[in-house]
């Protein structure tokens, strides 16, 4: 029998991040996975980051997580999105070499004390409502805490046309004994679906007919600490589009799609529709963009992003070959829809521990999310909280106003989900506070305090912060000028000398011409520009956060019956009864809820409290 502090089941993005955070906290950890070679596998498109997601990756990085480092070890194209907008909504997207990413993760894990087991988990050990580890085909692995990160493998079914097979990912079986065990626990479950496009040989496509999209120069980094010495070879993506003929083919065959057959009951993500969905729902559009993403540096394979489908194989070939540049496409794997079970995340606490079973944590896609970044974030949070609980440390729960990870977990555990949950910047009501570039300022100290980040990094961070403060106070606030160049390239004369920091607050100043930076203070100057630009808005958001913090965290018992509250509209009552928000804050964010309604709920809670005291 093997014994560990924490047992992590699953070697995907949630699993590895969970195991690694347990390791950073100084505890022993077992990682049990079906196929050791697939640890760190990117099972969807080979890219990390993007809007709302790079923010999460940087937050993971600020807490010592491994996703950003693995990204940089395998990144083959970097692009910053939204460069014409401000800092808070800029996001880095990195195309990765699928194999190199996996290798990078495995390499990082090798440097730790995490023990990896190439085993299928058959059973979970439960004694008196306490989970005590897992049983595999060959052995018992005990752990004070168990973290389950089984992704789409729960009762996974794949559909291509009318062909159905079981499995969580092409080529991987689903985990049937474990699934059965989970069903026996009678957790609240639901069913979701997602889809993937066909994979095409790079050598069979004509990239010269497509628009090339090269990476950004100079190539940026995802990680802000301990990044690799140099980048991988950088390569381009390509853009092509569907056309009338493509749409004609798909329209005529839509009834053959698994998704339209009525066989699939799971709810798919609205932001990730299949190509047959796009064409049928938006009939007026006669072309859709396809993003050709290379699968790797030396790999003869591309991922055509934008045409996920569950049409029969012959139709897939036909419509793909109707697209410019893809006329001679050789398809290696066909697209499919995958349907899987998830556990209603309202059954877990913000620490990701299951409410009904102690010492048992769920993280990743099993909680109804989608995306590597969302999964990894949950893995980290489950890992740190499992470890913190063993070490008798305070749990790590992030606020909505301090991290996208906070928004993610709050949304999941309070609202539950109606479709696979993906992060968008518009989900964060305090978006301006949460830039991908200030993740360390928001989270590093917290991470250091709980033990996720070591002293060396913490000191290093503090030094940088001091350096920035000195730059602002000693240089920007002390350098004075009487003229500046405005946005229209005109020279403006001021009536008196003003310091640079003050001038940064003006909207009309051309900031790049205002101050000459050097190599060391360039990033500080950029930060000062952002901070001054956002100043008024940030003050306002901080005031809002402070004002509502106490009230928002007030818990609402699940037994609350909103039908009894007079003064709420029927529509709002129905919505509240259905969603059962866990806190006043999440009730207040629900559609149609007014501040008066929030007051009525508060009063109802107090009444119930008083009644309880009386009896």
């Amino acid at each position, binding site marked *: 029998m093997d014994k560990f502090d924490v047992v992590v089941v699953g070697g995907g993005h949630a699993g590895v991040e969970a195991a690694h955070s347990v390791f950073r906290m100084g505890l022993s950890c077992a990682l049990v996975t079906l196929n050791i070679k697939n640890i760190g596998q990117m099972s969807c498109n080979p890219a990390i980051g993007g*809007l709302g997601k790079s923010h999460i990756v940087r937050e993971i990085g600020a807490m010592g997580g491994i996703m950003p480092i693995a990204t940089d070890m395998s990144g083959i194209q970097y692009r910053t999105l939204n460069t014409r907008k401000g800092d808070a909504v800029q996001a880095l997207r990195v195309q990765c070499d699928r194999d190199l990413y996996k290798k990078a993760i495995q390499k990082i894990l090798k440097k730790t004390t995490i023990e990896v087991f190439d085993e299928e988990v058959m059973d979970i050990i439960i004694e008196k409502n306490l989970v005590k580890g897992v049983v595999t085909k060959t052995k018992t692995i005990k752990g004070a805490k168990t973290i389950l990160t089984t992704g789409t493998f729960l009762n996974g079914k794949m559909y291509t046309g009318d062909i159905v097979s079981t499995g969580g990912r092409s080529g991987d079986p689903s985990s049937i004994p474990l699934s059965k065990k989970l069903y026996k626990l009678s957790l609240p479950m639901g069913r979701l679906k997602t889809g993937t496009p066909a994979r095409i040989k790079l050598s069979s496509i004509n990239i010269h007919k497509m628009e090339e999209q090269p990476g950004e120069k100079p190539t940026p980094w995802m990680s802000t600490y301990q990044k690799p010495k140099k980048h991988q070879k950088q390569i381009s993506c390509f853009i092509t589009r569907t056309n009338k003929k493509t749409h004609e083919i798909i329209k005529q065959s839509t009834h053959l799609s698994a998704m339209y057959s009525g066989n699939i009951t799971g709810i798919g993500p609205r*932001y990730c529709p299949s190509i047959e969905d796009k064409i049928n729902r938006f009939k007026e559009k006669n072309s859709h963009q396809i993003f050709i993403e290379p699968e790797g540096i030396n790999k003869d394979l591309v991922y055509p992003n934008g045409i996920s489908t569950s049409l029969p194989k012959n139709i897939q070939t036909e419509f793909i070959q109707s697209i410019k540049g893809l006329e001679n496409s050789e398809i290696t794997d066909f697209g499919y829809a995958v349907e899987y079970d998830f556990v209603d995340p309202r059954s877990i606490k913000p620490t990701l521990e299951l409410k009904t079973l102690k010492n048992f944590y769920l993280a990743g896609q099993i909680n109804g999310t989608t995306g590597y970044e969302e999964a990894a974030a949950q893995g980290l949070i489950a890992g740190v909280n499992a470890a913190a609980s063993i070490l008798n440390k305070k749990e790590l729960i992030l606020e909505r106003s301090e991290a996208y990870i906070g928004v993610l977990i709050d949304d999941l555990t309070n609202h539950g989900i109606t479709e696979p949950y993906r992060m968008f910047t518009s989900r964060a009501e305090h978006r301006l506070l949460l830039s991908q570039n200030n993740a360390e300022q928001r989270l590093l100290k917290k991470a250091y305090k709980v033990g996720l980040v070591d002293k060396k990094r913490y000191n290093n961070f503090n030094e940088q912060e001091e350096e920035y403060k000195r730059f602002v106070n000693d240089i920007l606030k002390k350098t004075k000028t009487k003229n500046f160049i405005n946005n229209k390239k005109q020279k403006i004369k001021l009536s008196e000398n003003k310091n640079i920091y003050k001038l940064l607050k003006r909207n009309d100043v051309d900031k790049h011409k205002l101050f000459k930076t050097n190599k060391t203070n360039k990033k500080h100057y950029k930060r000062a520009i952002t901070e001054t630009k956002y100043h008024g808005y940030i003050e306002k958001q901080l005031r809002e956060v402070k004002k509502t913090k106490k009230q928002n965290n007030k818990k609402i018992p699940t037994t609350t019956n909103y039908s009894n509250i007079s003064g709420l509209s029927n529509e709002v009552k129905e919505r509240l009864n259905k969603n059962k928000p866990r806190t006043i804050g999440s009730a207040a964010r629900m559609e*149609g809820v007014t501040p008066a309604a929030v007051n009525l709920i508060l009063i109802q809670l107090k009444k119930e409290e008083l009644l309880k005291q009386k009896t």
Partner: protein
Amino acid sequence: MSVVYALATPPAKSAICVFRVTGKGCHKSLNNFFGSRCFEPNVFNVVFFSGLDGVVDRVGLVVFKAPKSYTGEDSFEVYAHGGLAVMSNISKAFRGFGFEEAVGGEFTKRAFLNNKISLNEAEAVSDLIDCTDENGVVLSTNSLLGGLASQVSFFAGEIDGIRVRIEAEIDFSDEGESFYDVAGLLDDLKNLKNRFDLFVGGCVNKKVGSQKKNIVLIGPVNSGKSSVFNRLVGFDRAIVSNTPGTTRDMIESELFFESSVFSIFDTAGVRDAEDDVEKAGIQYSLSQANDSDLVIGVFEESDQGVFDYFKGLCEHNRFISIQNKVDINKPIKGVFDCYVSAKTGAGFDVLKGVIGNCFQSGLKLEKYDFLIRDRHEALFNKSVSDIELAVAGLLDNKPLELVAEDLKSARSNLDEVVGVKYSDSLLGDIFSSFCIGK
């Protein structure tokens, strides 16, 4: 909880007005308004109140320290002279200091949440809060707001529509789609701003006219309408004499009753007058009766013909009849709604009750009527200026996420009337308006 203030007395010209302020930290403002922060709790101080432009009024001030206050929080009350200008200046000064105007029932709610009042009392608390009816429309006796909600929700919808385009542009900029063209978006925003602005302006104008309910006293000459009027109002407002036809013009006064305000009109008695002035007065009385919310017929005796004549005058109004002078005449039971003596005051409690009942549907929520309206007016104006900011931001090439922030704020100012827009539902609108997704 944040600091809020409210005018605790009716929003009309009166001898004094009382403002209440409550919330943790509200005592920090004392120095700012009264030039000192050291006031002994629960003691009446006479001090000067300074607003944004200097001294506003000489006022009474009582400071309450938590938990010994109505709400259980740090509080203070200001007793000022009851002129409208004073009220408006004090209100402005509070707002300028960052205090928010309380929503209806806020003080009682706080008292309740801070264990200052019992469960039984609390049953009534919910009623004080702005309620919504079954269709989600904000209920207010204020006819203005009833119809407002649907109008405001229309504007809220327009703001949502524009936010959908901007949020899509922020979150899905790599989709190869264009979600708007700047010129079109600017047009839409300016358009929206102008219409909203006009609408808010219209509301403000209406507010002035529709504040109070009207009660008109009518009756035969010398039935004692003016005496009844004076009794109701509480002081000798109308000249009373034994000479028939004393009241020739309409006399108006305000009647405060159960914290509601009525305008009560005394009118010339109706008779075949020979005097032209009196004739005109009678004419006017009759027309006024038609426009009022409640007509009170004042009679001295039971004469079916006279009674029917007056009742017939107000077919479309609520009509109650009273027999006056019951100190000298015998009450004729079963004929009138009320029996009073303006001279002795007998029966006036019952009369006030009857008047109250006539407006009962409207009385319950009317308590904070003025505040609700003023508050909403301020919120709508804030919303308009947020839209202006967004327009200026777009013209100025301000980063889009800041424009988005202005629009979010514009929308959230309307939450109180039409409810929150949930981020997930905004995303839903994006997905149904645009073909997004890889």
